[in-house]
């Protein structure tokens, strides 16, 4: 562990100023991921800038009919917010599928986007890991990789992004609001997380001196036909082996619009425009779902222990689309998959 100083940011501008002047500083929000990483000597900030009390805690309707969620809104508050429960139940369910109640109480909306991979080697400083130490090698490719990625991987890294919330945000096509020394900007959700390529140390396109201020949801919430299905090694409190967020707009039983995102399989929530396009105009039934699954899993490649994820994902996609089409989303409390 490295000793660090602790400072509170007075406001967003102050937070940006503080982070811009100290490259070894880090923001701390809920701390549920960062503190663990500090204890494991993976993150070694010499200064923690506490942003948890910044006034970024509101959930408001926007003038265009969407919703703006402050970056400091706790995951629990977000999932239970009436607007989210009613209009964006896919997001609510995805959040509630993650972690535990205590963690969700602490975890912030912004922090959830920036949580780091759970790849075992990333956490173990005695082993090589390109994400932790660029150029040292990837231990997972020939190692214990049951939880690692099958899509969008590179020779440098096969880590996954572990978030559930982000899978729903990707499907809902959220926008990330950020601010930095150069001012504020927005990043489309699809462009926020990166693929590992040759720079696995970079998880996202957020600049080191930028802060996430809010997440914006577009008006469309797909509250009638959606489902979030998370497959894991125990029935709660485990990261996804594969998770699927599915959202449909139906006209009778014809698909007018479709959104489909996978978690647990790639360095970012995994979407494919071809997969979604393949569903358009189709009848909402298994054959169409299977075709979409094939598109979405196009190019998937296993690394041994995680080969099963490809077949599992294929079936999970079909299942989740079925749940969405029937209007019977996966229940959180009843673990039976219907």
């Amino acid at each position: 562990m490295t000793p660090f100083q602790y400072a509170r940011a007075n406001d967003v501008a102050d937070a940006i100023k503080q982070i811009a002047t100290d490259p070894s500083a880090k923001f701390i929000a809920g701390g549920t991921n960062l503190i663990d990483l500090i204890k494991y000597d993976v993150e070694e900030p010499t200064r923690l800038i506490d942003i948890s009390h910044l006034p970024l805690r509101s959930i408001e309707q926007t003038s265009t009919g969407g919703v703006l969620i402050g970056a400091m809104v706790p995951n629990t508050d977000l999932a239970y917010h009436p607007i989210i429960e009613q209009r964006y139940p896919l997001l609510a369910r995805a959040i509630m599928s993650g972690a535990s109640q205590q963690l969700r109480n602490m975890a912030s909306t912004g922090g959830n986007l920036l949580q780091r991979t759970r790849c075992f080697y990333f956490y173990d400083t005695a082993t090589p890991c390109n994400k932790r130490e660029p150029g040292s090698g990837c231990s997972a490719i020939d190692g214990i990789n049951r939880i690692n990625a099958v899509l969008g991987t590179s020779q440098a890294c096969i880590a996954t992004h572990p978030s559930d919330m982000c899978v729903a945000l990707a499907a809902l096509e959220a926008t990330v609001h950020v601010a930095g020394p150069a001012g504020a900007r927005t990043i489309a959700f699809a462009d926020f997380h990166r693929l590992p390529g040759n720079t696995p140390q970079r998880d996202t396109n957020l600049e080191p001196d930028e802060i996430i201020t809010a997440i914006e949801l577009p008006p469309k919430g797909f509250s009638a036909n959606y489902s979030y299905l998370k497959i894991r090694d125990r029935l709660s409190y485990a990261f996804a082996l594969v998770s699927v967020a599915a959202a449909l707009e139906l006209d009778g039983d014809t698909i007018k619009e479709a959104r489909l995102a996978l978690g647990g399989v790639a360095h970012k929530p995994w979407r494919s425009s071809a997969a979604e396009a393949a569903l358009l105009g189709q009848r909402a039934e298994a054959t169409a779902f299977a075709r979409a699954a094939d598109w979405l899993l196009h190019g998937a490649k296993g690394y041994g222990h995680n080969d099963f994820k490809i077949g599992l994902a294929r079936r999970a996609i079909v299942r989740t689309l079925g749940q969405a089409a029937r209007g019977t989303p996966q229940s959180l409390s009843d673990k039976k998959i219907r």
Partner: protein
Amino acid sequence: MASYIGSATSRVDGRPKVTGEARYAGEFNVPGLVHGYVIESTIPKGRIVRIDTSGALGVDGVIDVLTHQSRPPMADKDNAYKDEVAPEEGSPYRPLYDDRILFTGQPVALVLAEDWETARVAASMVKVEYQKEPHVTDLHAERSRAFAIDAPEKPRGDAAKAFASAAVRHAAEYFIPTEHHNPMELFASTAIWEDGRLTVYDKTQGVQNVQKYLCGVFKMKPDEVRVMSPYMGGGFGAGLRPQYQVVLAVLGASALKRPVRVMLTRAQMYALGYRPASIERLALGASSGGTLESVQHEAIAVTSQFEEFARNDTGWGNLLYRSPNAKFEHRLVKLDLPTSCDMRAPGAATGVYALECAMDELAIALKTDPVQLRLQCYSERHQGEDVPYTSKQLRECYRQGAAEFGWDRRNAEPRSMREGSELVGWGMASGVWEALQMPATVRIVLTANGHAEVATAASDIGTGTYTIMAQVAADMLGLPIDSISVKLGDSTLPQCPLEGGSWIASSVCNAIANTARAVRGDLLELAKEMKDSPLAGVGVDDVALIDGKIASKRDATRAVPIASAMQSGNAERITREEANKVDEDKSHARNVHSAIFAEVKVDEELGVIRVTRVVNAVAAGRILNPKTAHSQVMGGVVWGIGMALHEETLFDHHFGRVMNANIAEYHVPVNADIHDIKVIFVEEPDEIVNPLGIKGLGEIGIVGVAAAIANAVYHATGKRVRDLPITLDKVIQFE
């Protein structure tokens, strides 16, 4: 007064536990306490070349960094390090002893600082240079190096020949991965020197074991060392042997002449003992009528390079099933890991898992109902020793368990039962464990005000020892339970063995009975000396202590209040100390048994498994406290579910490291994984096993549970998974 024995008494230590008043080894604060942080080896094998402590020593608040070169002296003979449960063969690990690295996670230095965070920060500044040597940590890769050790059970007949000519055969290998205990409480020790004497608060299942061990390692006299462990946040076997942090705490305290606490992190606890991974090979041969002709059970299990730890994995078939031919073999593979150790039902949890899955497979080959097959093979005698049991109500366990579960509604055909998207599977298994007693001494101090203190050096590891001892003492002394206080977990108290093996209840309760009898004798003498004593002429076994009186058993009106007897004799207190009588009698086998029935629902497409019902019917002699007993067995079932579906310590054999050394990634069941668990205690009066008929039930709850679940998964899906844990990718071949 109603009897406390057999009543569902709430824990007498419940209040201190929930209010935080109960203190654990890492919670004893003394002025000037120094905190130690352990630096562990990052390599599995080799030597320490250099340790650069300069950076750490420069940190404000750091007092010292101990290494093998700078530590205070320690014993240099193996014998000093052999604790009560150390394996017979081998040289116990010596913490911080020399430059040799024997396993990843081995302590190589101890940072001592004014507070724990400082010690932790400084620890990351210590630079350790190693000279690596090639290592091996993979049981499968090394199995050809396995060597046989003495199997606990002798062979009978010619098992191989009988197998070869059997009408119906089943042979297969089963695998149980390495598992860690993961008690909630972290291992910790606080060592305090005072006037040349050492007091140690330690997380241990045996204070006297640790006391003797420390005397050996540090060449101290018994009265110079006192070890205390009043409460324990779970041990499960991890706390049977002294763990290395206790040595480090004493080293630190000796070096600094200040009190020192060493607390391990969760990750560091993965370098302590573990349930050894084992490959279990079963070969069963049966007649076409469904009786066993041959049982062969071979286990290949992990131990360290320096000690040979082994438990009875293979002999359980001798207890459960009749067979004229049998052969048992136990092999070990030495790996560059810490020594494996006891974990709840050691040997049985693994061995019976394999045996009971094999019996299920045999039943399928025979087209016989699995309960029926077990009844056909039921053994009234211990097959190896050819002796009867003190009691064995296993048949009744099968009957009551099956009735409660509704087993007769089972369709034997795999994949025949379903509910919507889920396949339903029903499986069963038997469980067996030992009913042991060990020598233990209990002291009772009865004071004239009607209060009794009952003391022995046992540890209550969370099982309810405080409570059952209070119950038994209250009944034996004729006092209300509120008038009893129980003192445990202090090495200066009367001798008591380690809390393990499910032997504590029988040992200490029978010792209480003997001590109470001695107290009764003293009281009777006092009562008889009273003027016109109504008890004149009666013997000690003709009287009982009831409702605060000493009374004739035949004529309750002939009674003297205990207080009056003591006052008239001017006795302020009566102090007695007696041991239980441990029978050397080998004319009977002593065991507890169970029958487990499990229901699983498996998603047909996705392989997700839910354990929706478990019935565990247990015959374990006299149940002292149905409430704590129920908790024990229920906890065992939950653990069995974890063993079946979740638990696995993941190694990267290239690095020789545990990769999931935390409880986020080392999975145990969570609430969502647990549904209906029904525990049945089958009546089992037993006058032979020991005077009180107590058999103990710490371990039996887990035995057989994983097999029942594995068998249920097969019944649901038609897919036999023999490698634990049964994860969805083993159930379904995802294309």
